[in-house]
């Protein structure tokens, strides 16, 4: 009895045989990719193929946003301008203070004969596509190797840390978000300076791991990058603690944090290109 679906007088292999062949090829690819990372060329090929398509497909929503912006009410714009002006004034004060601090810092550093911090170069990038993967959370940016990006660079938006550049293609790159499962970010608690490790939970939340039960931490505390990992520069805001609870079983606290950066909202991000050096030797 022939398998249903098989054509009468089949000329080639039956569906089951073909299924097995394709499964073998698929398994082979998966192993080559995950164990040996041997298929980056194929990825680059696909990226070249899909990059223009993605740019085009993003156009409709851009046009919609543009039109929406065109019909924004006058009063709304004025209000927005007022808040922006206020914010600008506040930021200018900060900038002046920062300039003063930088000068002072440079003097102190020269006194202490420490290396100067390298200046930071930034690349503006826009979110091109958001992955639909359930095993890690990634976004695709419209800048890649041609703009000087390389794997491992930190990505920030106006508010805080977004993630880390993963795979880099010539004209696009993938960013693993800090909330992605198993993505670790070395942080310190801004209020107390205690260092810790924030791990993504996969649901737009972070979890501060290995905090002993007597740690001084409470909801509302901000977490900054600690900069001890040579990946992220120190002092980038990462998350705010939302809940602290004592676990019944383990010796550690359960600390939940909410990322500060708009991981699923912000369209425009910055990639920081600089070798974050460890300055305290």
């Amino acid at each position, binding site marked *: 009895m022939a398998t249903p679906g098989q054509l009468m007088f089949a000329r080639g292999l039956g569906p089951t045989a073909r299924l097995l062949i394709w499964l073998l090829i698929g398994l082979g690819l*998966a192993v080559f990719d995950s164990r040996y990372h041997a298929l980056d060329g194929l990825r680059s090929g696909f990226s070249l193929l899909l990059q223009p398509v993605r740019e085009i497909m993003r156009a409709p929503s851009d046009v919609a946003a543009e039109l929406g912006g065109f019909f924004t009410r006058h009063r709304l714009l004025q209000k927005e301008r007022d808040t922006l002006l206020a914010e600008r004034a506040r930021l200018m004060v900060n900038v002046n203070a920062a300039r003063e601090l930088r000068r002072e810092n440079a003097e102190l550093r020269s006194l202490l004969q420490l290396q100067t911090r390298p200046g930071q170069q930034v690349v503006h990038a826009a979110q091109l596509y958001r992955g639909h993967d359930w095993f890690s959370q990634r976004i695709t940016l419209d800048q890649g190797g041609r703009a000087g990006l390389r794997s491992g660079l930190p990505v920030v938006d106006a508010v805080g840390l977004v993630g880390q550049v*993963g795979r880099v293609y010539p004209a696009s790159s993938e960013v693993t978000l800090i909330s992605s499962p198993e993505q670790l970010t070395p942080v310190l608690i801004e209020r107390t300076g205690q260092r810790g490790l924030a791990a993504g939970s996969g649901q737009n939340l972070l979890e501060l791991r290995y905090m002993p039960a007597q740690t001084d931490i409470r909801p509302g505390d901000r977490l900054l990058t600690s900069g001890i990992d040579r990946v992220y520069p120190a002092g980038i805001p990462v998350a705010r603690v939302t809940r602290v609870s004592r676990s019944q079983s383990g010796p550690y606290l359960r600390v939940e944090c909410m990322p500060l950066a708009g991981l699923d909202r912000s369209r425009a991000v910055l990639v920081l290109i600089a070798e974050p050096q460890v300055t305290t030797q």
Partner: protein
Amino acid sequence: MNTPTQLFGSWRHILGSLTLAVLLEQLPWTGWAQALRPDFVLVGVLFWTLHQPARIGFATAFFLGLLADFQDGAVFGQHAIAYVIGVYLVLFLRLRLLQFDPFRQAAQLFPILLAVQLVVLLVGWLAVNPPAGLAMLLPVLGSTVLWYLVAGFLRLLHGKGLQDRA
């Protein structure tokens, strides 16, 4: 076979619809739409496997699966394996599926789509790490609804009612 097979399904239709499916997946989906987003490419491949098994089958499914793997930044082979298994299931149930009206067809496709998604989950689990929650099964609902809409639309287009008149 008194199916609408002969009425549509030129290469132009096949390539056009599959290209459209790939394009739709490139849209910047967000929020709930993204969580529920049907797997357009999978539905397209399975649809043509059902109606044009001589033209669309394992090879197309495998290649488009690799494309999906690239899109999600997943391990190569994750979607490819799953799509190929989906094609096999459809081929296996083909004569049965062709007898049903769109609604029942979609209901029968649901377990197939679910199986495909579970294979994606399994391969990803083995190759990368445990998945975050079961939200990844939501697109199966979206895909089932999409199948119903597509199959229903094509039947209406060919002048048949949505329901089978027994």
